[in-house]
């Protein structure tokens, strides 16, 4: 099966609509960034607290906010995760006292408890209890009820119970204590004791992130710096392997992809956190890979001394690699999209960045990196013609290298 046999699309002739689109997207992203005062950083970069709470039946965002209002100073954001009973509760802690930061989790849980688990007496909430707390709670009542279990057996039993609770499909929440009859080692007598001592609370805390503002700022600065250094290193390497303008073009293209992706995050109001940085690194790698494949072909064709202008050669190179580009992008896109669809909420921001990045990254090699290359070569040529100096007559790297293409072997040879 083949999609493209021998294409000859005039990509570079149609570059303007695409470059305009790029500029529009970049502008939209930048405007959104400017209006919102920079990207919406996740709490790992700004400092603050984020809790992922799963309810049996999700209360309204307003109810949650008012439950937390008293114990947590400052603005509380409640974001419902569609298709689930979960919410993300977040609060920025900028400028707030260290004391709040130390115990934000405790405060949140106890406020939620007061609001959503009323009238349970001194029973233990089996959905928020840890294994050792559960064991401490059950040890004596079990003995009193005549269930002869050693301490180790009680520990094993409670471990089984918490594991049972935390594995899908329960995923953290026991709705009805009778569900526990599915736990290995359970019997009606034990279950009875558990029912006397515990209840299935209305929520469980699935994830907590608390970050001090200073460490957040540190992480952010470091992440940005390291990405810029990595880009610089790639530029130097490509400049060394090709020509410096190739490196510049490739880095501008990658930069373009990153800006657009971050802009889209801003437009969709998605937070940029450490996971998204990982995704951005991936897309930088991906886009760079794509650009180099095209440039590599350009270099090879130049060495073959193809006829036609530099622009024609680049266009032909894009066409020659088109089938590979489409196929690779398509296949990687399959991976990214399956991650986006099935990867779960932890991977959501990450896979979103990948999906966007693959599309933008593929297209930027053709419509951003290549035109920059041509633009520069034209400029140099024009200047040379004007000054009359023949220093850089042709954009060909080393015309004296004439490879014998038709020979079966030995085509691969070191460049320069």
């Amino acid at each position, binding site marked *: *099966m*083949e999609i493209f*046999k021998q294409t000859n699309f005039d990509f570079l002739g149609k570059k303007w609509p695409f470059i305009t689109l790029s500029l529009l997207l970049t502008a939209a992203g930048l405007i959104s960034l400017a209006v919102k005062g920079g990207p919406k950083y996740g709490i790992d970069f700004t400092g603050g607290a984020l809790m992922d709470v*799963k309810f049996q039946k999700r209360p309204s965002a307003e109810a949650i906010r008012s439950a937390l209002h008293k114990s947590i100073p400052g603005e509380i954001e409640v974001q419902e995760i569609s298709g689930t009973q979960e919410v993300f509760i977040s609060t920025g802690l900028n400028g707030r006292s260290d004391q709040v*930061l130390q115990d934000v*989790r405790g405060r949140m*849980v106890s406020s939620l408890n007061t609001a959503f688990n009323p009238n349970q007496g001194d029973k233990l909430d089996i959905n928020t209890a*840890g*294994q*050792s*707390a559960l064991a*401490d709670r059950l040890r004596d009542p079990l003995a009193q009820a005549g269930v002869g279990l050693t301490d180790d057996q009680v520990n094993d039993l409670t471990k089984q119970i918490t*594991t049972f609770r*935390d*594995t*899908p499909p329960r*995923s953290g*929440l026991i709705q009805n204590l009778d569900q526990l009859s599915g736990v290995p080692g359970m019997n009606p007598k034990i279950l009875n004791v558990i029912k006397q001592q515990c209840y299935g609370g209305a929520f469980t805390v*699935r*994830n907590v992130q*608390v*970050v*001090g503002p200073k*460490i957040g700022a540190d992480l952010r600065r470091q992440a940005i710096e*390291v990405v810029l250094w*990595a*880009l610089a*290193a*790639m530029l130097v*390497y490509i400049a060394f*392997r090709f020509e410096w303008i190739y490196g510049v073009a490739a880095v501008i293209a990658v930069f373009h992809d990153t800006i657009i992706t971050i802009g889209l995050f801003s437009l969709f109001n998605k937070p940029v956190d450490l996971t998204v*940085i*990982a995704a951005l*690194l*991936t897309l930088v*790698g991906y886009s760079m*890979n794509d650009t*180099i*494949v095209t440039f*590599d072909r350009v270099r090879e064709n130049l060495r073959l001394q193809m006829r036609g202008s530099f622009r024609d050669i680049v266009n032909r190179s894009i066409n020659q*690699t088109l*089938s*590979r580009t489409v*196929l*690779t992008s*398509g*296949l*990687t896109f*399959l*991976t*990214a999209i*399956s991650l986006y669809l*099935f990867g*779960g909420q*932890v*991977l959501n921001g990450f896979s979103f960045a990948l999906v966007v990045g693959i599309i933008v990254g593929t297209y930027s090699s053709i419509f951003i990196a290549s035109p920059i290359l041509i633009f520069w070569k034209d400029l140099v040529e024009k200047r040379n013609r004007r000054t009359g100096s023949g220093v850089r007559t042709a954009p060909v790297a080393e015309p004296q290298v004439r490879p014998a293409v038709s020979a*079966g072997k*030995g*085509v*691969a040879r070191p460049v320069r």
Partner: protein
Amino acid sequence: MQRHIRFKFLLILAVTLACIFGIIGFPKNMTELVENWHKNIHLGLDLRGGTYLVVQVQQQDAFNADAGARADALKEAMRKAAVQFNDVDVQDAHTFQDATHVAILVRGVPATQSGTFRGIVGEQFSAWQLQPQNATDYRLTMRPTEALKLWQNVLAQTKNTMDKKINALGLSEASVQQRREDADSQLLVQMPGVDDPGRVKQILQTAAVLDLYDVKAGPFAGRDEALAQNGGILPPGTKLIGQPADPNQRAGGVYVVTRTAVVRGPDIRDASPEPGQLPGQWNTKFVLSQDAGRRFESYTGSHVGQRLAIVLDGRVIEAPVIKSQIRDEGVIEGQGTEQNAADLSLNLKAGSLPAGVIFLQESTVGPSLGADSIRDGFAAGIAGVLAVVVAMLIYYKKSGINATLALVLNAVILIACLSWFDAVLTLPGIAGIILTIGMAVDSNVLIFERIREELRAGKAVIPAVDTGFNKAFLTIIDTHITTVVSCAILFAFGSGPVKGFAVTLVIGLIANLFTAVFVSKVIFDWELSRPQPVTALSI
């Protein structure tokens, strides 16, 4: 030619087997296989659930305490040498960055005695630098080398104590590390699978400094009253402790106690919870070390009828009257639940923290979320790889098998390397694996498209395959090295998650050079090495 291929084939087989062994060992049955898998593949906290804490050690506490003790010693030495002075004061450091700038201020030393004073400082306080402020006042600061020593000691001791606490909690996989090389005094606590992080934080944060003081007078309702009773100044060698009396609390009150404690935290040998007199009320019993026990015995023997203050982290827990001589045991009452009493005994046994700690960062992934992430991530991974394999088989027919084999082997090598290096697989690591798969697919596609081009140009099958591989190799090398170069930067300057990404990606890319370029070529060669000439290639 044939032998050449056989040799290469054996090499590939050996690598494959070694990798599979690295991942699952020699399992005898299914359960053992799963067990080995879990033993060899370490999932990060973000994937399997657990808690990650960044702890800031409040170095200034230790420096202030040290300066305080030295200031006392200096006063003593000056009195002994009959050097006059108005007062000796400590200028406390308030943040951990300032800790090393803590200073002792000495005021009012007569100019005539400056020589003697300098002599004392030079002899007994060599860790401190003397800076005259004017004719009679001096300022002592810690020498940088000594400050650095103390700083590192405090950090190491804090790390040690936390280690002990974590071990006592039975968190076998947990670890405490210094966060960065530079002297920012932060510790990183990683606790996989912990399900009650609130309690652990509480325990880690408790300094657990237990002091037993000889009470000279008290209790008083407040500091002012205590001072008034003593005519405005405290007797030499004593200090005030405790908080103003609160009618709701049993143990309120301010006491005048000797400056140095009879027994200090490190003197404790053992501690355990025990039931109190009221049901549901637990106490913590402690046993002193031999040496401290002897001191305590003689002290309690000579102080029967007087009060002894039990002070935990600066709070007076109680100040009972000594009824008879006590050898080496004591009880801290009123600890509430059994768990609280047990936690306190754990803290007492682990030893006290030399300085306070605050948490800069907490990240807890609940076990249920961890389980969900693993399930979802696994499903997504399988779906993604299946989609890629099916697409390649449709598009490249039989040659797609080649690519699939190379891809699978790449994944196997990558996972085996992670297991050999004891690397921890985190979310950014998975990002690295995804990019690896992307680039591995790309390498195969590059090669196959080149072969197709050569075939289209009218070449015979064998030269077409050779040329295709050779030409694509140049491109593959360039894309791979560029990425490796950027990974080197990410690894050198990045922090934890970014490093994880770089490591998996580099391993994946090296594995890919082996599989996509070498293994795939060997399979082609093998297919094309049949005796009858091959005229068509399924690609």
